[in-house]
């Protein structure tokens, strides 16, 4: 069985995306993956402020109950702020899905091992934090099934996706955070 490839996973997750879907990608590789899958005004890309992807997505999910909010981030970004899973577990936003692309390494900085290579099981962490709808995905069949939950399931949804260790070409989103913020707000609420 060959390991899932992160860019194929991200393309699959946003393929045929609904108009209500808002996607926030974590610092580094996940933002390049989301850009490679197709830029959108309803994407927000982190290229800094590590650990802030899930907190920001929670704030957005609470502010916009009529939208679906999807986090796509890496194990490094997730591990920096595990406490936010407890906050999500306490708030239980039904419109929030968190996807972690777990390659067990810090991809941007030379491939150093993360704690998920050393025994941390993010699905169990999420469950322990009160996010009962949590799974781990390692195959294409599991991914297809998990996508239904990610897009339509009752949140909060947490899916840890085991992906291959790869060094991929950089695909940069707009670097300027003001541009990304203002076009996101314009698209969502009609004003910058």
């Amino acid at each position, binding site marked *: 069985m060959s390991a899932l490839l992160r860019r194929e996973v991200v393309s699959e997750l946003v393929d045929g995306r609904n108009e209500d879907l808002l996607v926030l990608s974590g610092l580094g590789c996940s933002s390049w993956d989301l850009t490679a899958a197709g830029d959108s005004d309803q994407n927000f890309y982190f290229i800094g402020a590590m650990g802030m992807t899930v*907190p*920001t997505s*929670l*704030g957005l999910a*609470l*502010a916009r109950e009529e939208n679906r909010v999807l986090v796509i981030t890496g194990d490094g970004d997730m591990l920096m702020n595990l406490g936010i899973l407890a*906050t999500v577990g*306490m708030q239980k936003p039904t419109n929030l899905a968190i996807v972690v692309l777990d390659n067990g390494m810090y991809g941007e900085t030379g491939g150093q091992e993360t704690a998920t290579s050393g025994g941390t099981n993010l699905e169990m962490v999420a469950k322990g934090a009160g996010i009962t709808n949590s799974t781990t995905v390692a195959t294409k069949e599991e991914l297809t099934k998990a996508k239904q939950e990610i897009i339509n399931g009752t949140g909060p949804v947490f899916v840890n996706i085991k992906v291959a260790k790869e060094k991929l070409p950089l695909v940069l989103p707009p670097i300027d955070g*003001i541009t990304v913020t203002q076009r*996101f707000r314009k698209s969502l609420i009609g004003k910058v």
Partner: protein
Amino acid sequence: MNWRSEIFRVFKEQNITCVCHVPDAGHLELLQTCEQDKDIKLVTLTTEEEGVGLLSGAWLGGKKGALLMQSSGVGNTINALALPITCKMPFVTIVSMRGEWGEFIPWQIPMGQGTPTVLEAMGVTNFRANHAEEVYETVDAAVKFAYNNRKPVSVLLSQRLIGAKQFKEE
């Protein structure tokens, strides 16, 4: 004068609907008031930096908010502030100060004394209220400054205002 209800009055007037916090006794009454307000979403955080993200996300979704914390939590927010600053988002935090006026616990002093400098170093504009009579106008001015200019601000509620905590042995 009940300055705590004056902060709440600004929240209502300025349409602040997302309030997040790591609990502090200095904010106790304000937290209770927010919790009872049906239009305010009150979120308890595990660490203060979550609040920076949470309010940025609320802003992306068109909502206004404020982070309540003690000065000891300010250090936790520092790198997270890169988010609102880089993206020109407003950010409001109301900080109950420790480690200054009549402090009894030495552990509170490093971050309490460092708070104004550290926030300023990140580009946060600090407002300060030392007396009950200036709380309303200070919070009002800070919130307007943040949301009109899309800038990060803090309101430092002086320990002189809150009252120094006293511990007595039983």
